[in-house]
Structures are given as structure tokens and as C-alpha cells.
């Protein structure tokens, strides 16, 4: 129950922040809408009448995967940096529920908000262009959610480093670019790349939605275990770094 209240608090915080920085929120809506419209019209213009629905599906799925991955990857590191700069980080550490739970639920709220926002923009774009897609959104979001948990784990590792070293933007950039390249690697049937975070899940989503491929249940179980492993490792490293930050009294310093 207490955890649910924490989740509610993070949800409200996101709502208040979106409302408080209304200009930024509106700009975000406009930019996202333009990106979606660009994808819809761009595919039609470049591909002409011969373009298939697969091209647009592929582009949209790729975009959703990319946005979700970037968001999950940078979340905790960025949040720790922000809280540190705002001077509120130590207050989060005074929560009896633990700062790791706060940051986990914050990441969760961000992912969920991202899904809702993308869906709204997607339907708005479909209504504006009159071109309706048949993407299985529950499957897409379910898979993206499970896969991105592994990146949330990586983000926790980065957050832990952020507690000690404060500025970790460069590392974040390297990981983001690295991930784009890694997402092109083959994973199924099991290749060594499948053990990397997110890659197997992203490939499964792309292949099943765009190319209609189907996978056995054990493959989905493998993806889930991969995510749980990285999430657990992320939390473990975060807690270790947290202890080190406490020992060095780095919690309050920026």
C-alpha cells in the first residue's frame, strides 16, 4: 500500500511539473505531433503509391523503441543529477521507502506517461492523415515495457555513478549511441548479443510486428529474465554506490 502511495506521489509530481512548465509541455506535444506527421507523410511521399504499410509500421515501431530506450536509459542518472542540483536529493534519502524505490517508480511513471503520450500522438496523427494502422499496441507496449526494464537497470548503474561522480552526461551519450548500433545485431535463435540488455526484446518486437514473425514462449521468458537480471544488477550496483557516497559524504555535494 505504501508503495502504491509512492507511485501516486510520483504520478502527481509528473502532472504538476507538466502543468507548471506549460510552455515546455506544449512544445513537446507539437514536436511529437510533427514527428509523427512527418513519418506518416514522409513514407507516403517518398514511397509513392507503391509503399506498403510495413514501411510505416517499421518506422513507427523503430521510433517508439528508440524513444522508450533513450528515456529508460537516461532516466535515473538524469534524475539524480537534477535532484542534486535542486538540493532535494538528501530529502529523498530520508524517505523510509528508500531512494531506490522513489527512482524506480519515477522511471515507471515516465515510461507509462511516454506510452500514453505516444498513443495520443499516434491516434491524432492517424486522424489527421486518415491513414489508420493496425499495430497491436498492447503487445508492443507490453514488450517494450519488459525490455526497457533492463535499461532502467543500466540507468540505475549510471545513477549510482552519478552519486559519486556527479556529471555522467558523456557516458550517457556513449551508451545511447552504442545502443542504436547494437539494436541491429541478430539475437534469435540465441546469439551472444541476446544476453545484452534490451537488444533481444527490441528485435522480437520489430520482427513480430513488422514482419509477422512468431516466437516460442521460452524466448519471451528469456527476454523477461534478461530484463530482471539487468534490473537486479542495476539496483545492486546503485545500492553499493549509495553506500560509497554515504561513506564519502557525497550525497549533498554537487
Amino acid at each position, binding site marked *: *500500500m*505504501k*508503495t502504491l*502511495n*509512492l507511485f*501516486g*506521489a*510520483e504520478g*502527481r*509530481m509528473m502532472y*504538476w*511539473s507538466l502543468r*507548471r*512548465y506549460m510552455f515546455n509541455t506544449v512544445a513537446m506535444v507539437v514536436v511529437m505531433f510533427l514527428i509523427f506527421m512527418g513519418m506518416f507523410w514522409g513514407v507516403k511521399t517518398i514511397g509513392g503509391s507503391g509503399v506498403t504499410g510495413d514501411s510505416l509500421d517499421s518506422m513507427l515501431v523503430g521510433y517508439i523503441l528508440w524513444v522508450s530506450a533513450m528515456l529508460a536509459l537516461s532516466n535515473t542518472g538524469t534524475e539524480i543529477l537534477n535532484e542534486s542540483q*535542486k*538540493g*532535494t*536529493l*538528501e*530529502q*529523498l*534519502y*530520508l*524517505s*523510509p*521507502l*528508500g531512494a531506490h524505490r*522513489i527512482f524506480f517508480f519515477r522511471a515507471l511513471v515516465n515510461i507509462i506517461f511516454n506510452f500514453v503520450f505516444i498513443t495520443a500522438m499516434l491516434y491524432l496523427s492517424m486522424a489527421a492523415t486518415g491513414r489508420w494502422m493496425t499495430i497491436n499496441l498492447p503487445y508492443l507496449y507490453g514488450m517494450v515495457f519488459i525490455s526497457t526494464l533492463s535499461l532502467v537497470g543500466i540507468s540505475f548503474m549510471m545513477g549510482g555513478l552519478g552519486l559519486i561522480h556527479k556529471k555522467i552526461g558523456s557516458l550517457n551519450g556513449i551508451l545511447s549511441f552504442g545502443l542504436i548500433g547494437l539494436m541491429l545485431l541478430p539475437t534469435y535463435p540465441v546469439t551472444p548479443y541476446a544476453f545484452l540488455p534490451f537488444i533481444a526484446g527490441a528485435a522480437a518486437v520489430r520482427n513480430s510486428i513488422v514482419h509477422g514473425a512468431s516466437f516460442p514462449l521460452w524466448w519471451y521468458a528469456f527476454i523477461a529474465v534478461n530484463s530482471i537480471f539487468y534490473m537486479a544488477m542495476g539496483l545492486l550496483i546503485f545500492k553499493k554506490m549509495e*553506500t560509497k557516497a*554515504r*561513506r*564519502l*559524504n557525497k*550525497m*549533498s555535494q554537487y
Partner: protein
Amino acid sequence: MAESCIQVKDLTKTYADLTAVNNISFDVRTGEILGILGPNGSGKTTTLKSILGLIEFDKGTVQVNGLSIKKERSRILTDVGAVLEGARNIYWHLTPMENLTYFAGIRGMPKKNIAERAEYLLESLELTDVASKEIRQFSAGMKQKCALACAFIHDPSILLLDEPTLGLDVEITRTIMDWLLDVVEKEGKTILITSHNMDFVEATCKRILIIRKGEIISHETVRSLKEKFARKHFVVDLTTEPPETLLESISTLGSVSAHGNSLKIELDAVEHLIPLMKAVERAEVDMTDFRSVENDLEDIFLEVIREEEK
């Protein structure tokens, strides 16, 4: 005697080659306000953060409500609130009400229980009228009152305050002081304060801990400190700044310091009073006031520090 709700024993914290806190022990009794005084870098904040578990100390034990901070920090934090120095503590882009709701939420409080408690705190700290305004527009004093309210939202029995009146004007300091005294008296809360504001500490704390270079050099009640260091000063107000000749002639009578047109003198013996008056007369400066003043906490604090340095 009330039982202790915070027990610090042999606490030691070292950073590289600097010992911030060296083997200190003390306790905070339930329902009291304990003040920690000390010069900058004396180890006050390290002590406070060690009690909160924000700093991992090297040696010793810290127990809050009978629980070890190293083993049961989460349980301890359900009954402890804190306002830390050098940090904002609250979100300036939110309103006081939003901050209270958020901090209650991250402590696991259900939303339905928050409103009543938040309204009570806003009212008691005179923040009701600005409850829906963005905090970034507030003065430093109002921001600090919001931080206090947020630290108190989950109704903890223990509150730790690091320099709560730093940079605040007299009026706000008085409001915060009255509020703290009120919550201790009416709700039986326990408060641990670190401060440089001697008047504030004297007015709020019954017991005081003086720390210097990470060690406790005095641990007494304000009353016993005052008795121990009870000395009378004489203050002589003149129409002009005291001439050098006067300062020279009275320097043998005791400890003398000049502040503008005033002289502050601690006589070595009462018999020196008449030579003092004669010296002033000889200097041919007009005297506008002559009064005796008791040692205040600031004098005592400086004296304790000076004695320790000898």
C-alpha cells in the same frame, strides 16, 4: 528524567586525513530540544547526518528509538524528519501544498490522510494564504517554513534541524522559534538543532553540546553553563570613540574591548571599579551610560572555546 530517544556512542567519522567527528557520545531525551553549537567545520553537520544515516560513520553506534541506524534505518525514518543546511529541501517549482503532498506520498502516506495534516501545518506556520503559490516567489524565511512543514508532514516524534535560522531575519526566526517551542510543549516532540544563532539556541534549548574539532568540549544545560561562566561585564557608553590613552590606562584593570563608542570591560576584581571611573574622568570624555551586563551565551561559547584552546 525522560528516557533518551537518540543515543550516540563513540561516534567517529574520518575523511582521508581529516577527523570530522572524534569519539563523541551524547543522548537526546524525549521531549527536549538539544542544541549543538560549534565553530564552522567542528563536526555538527557530520554528527547530524550520521544520526540520519546520510553519512556512513566509521566507528561507534547511533540508536534512535532503540533502533540501530545502521541496521534499521527505514524503520527509524518513519519517525524522524529533518531540514538540512545548504540544501533547498523542497521543490521551488511547486506550491507548499504540492510539496507537502509529495513528501507525504514518498513516505508512504495515503492521500486521504495528507490534506488534514498539511492544512494544520500550513496554518500553524502561517502559510495558508500562500498554500497555492509557487515557492520560488517566496522569501528565504517562507521557504524555510515550508521546508519545516514538509519535514513534519508525517508527524514524526523527532526532528533534526541543521542551522534552521541561517540567513533569516529576526521576525521569521522568532516565528520559527515559537513554533518549535510549541510543538515540543504541546505535542511532546524531540528536536536536535545545530545553530550559530546564540539567541535562538538560548531561547529554545535547555541543554547544549559544544563541539570543537570533532570533539565535545561541553555538554551541559544552559543554566549550568551560565552559572559556571557567570561573569559580569560593565558597559560604558561614551559620546565619542574611547581615546587610546583611556584604553591603555584601563587595560590593567581587566579584559577590555571597544565597540564604536562603547567599552566592554570584564574587571579582574570589583575593587577596580573606582579606578575605572577615574580613568574615564581623566580621559575627559563624556559618559552617557554605565551598566552591568551578564555573560550571554555568545560570551560563554567563546569562553568555552578559548579555554579549550589554552
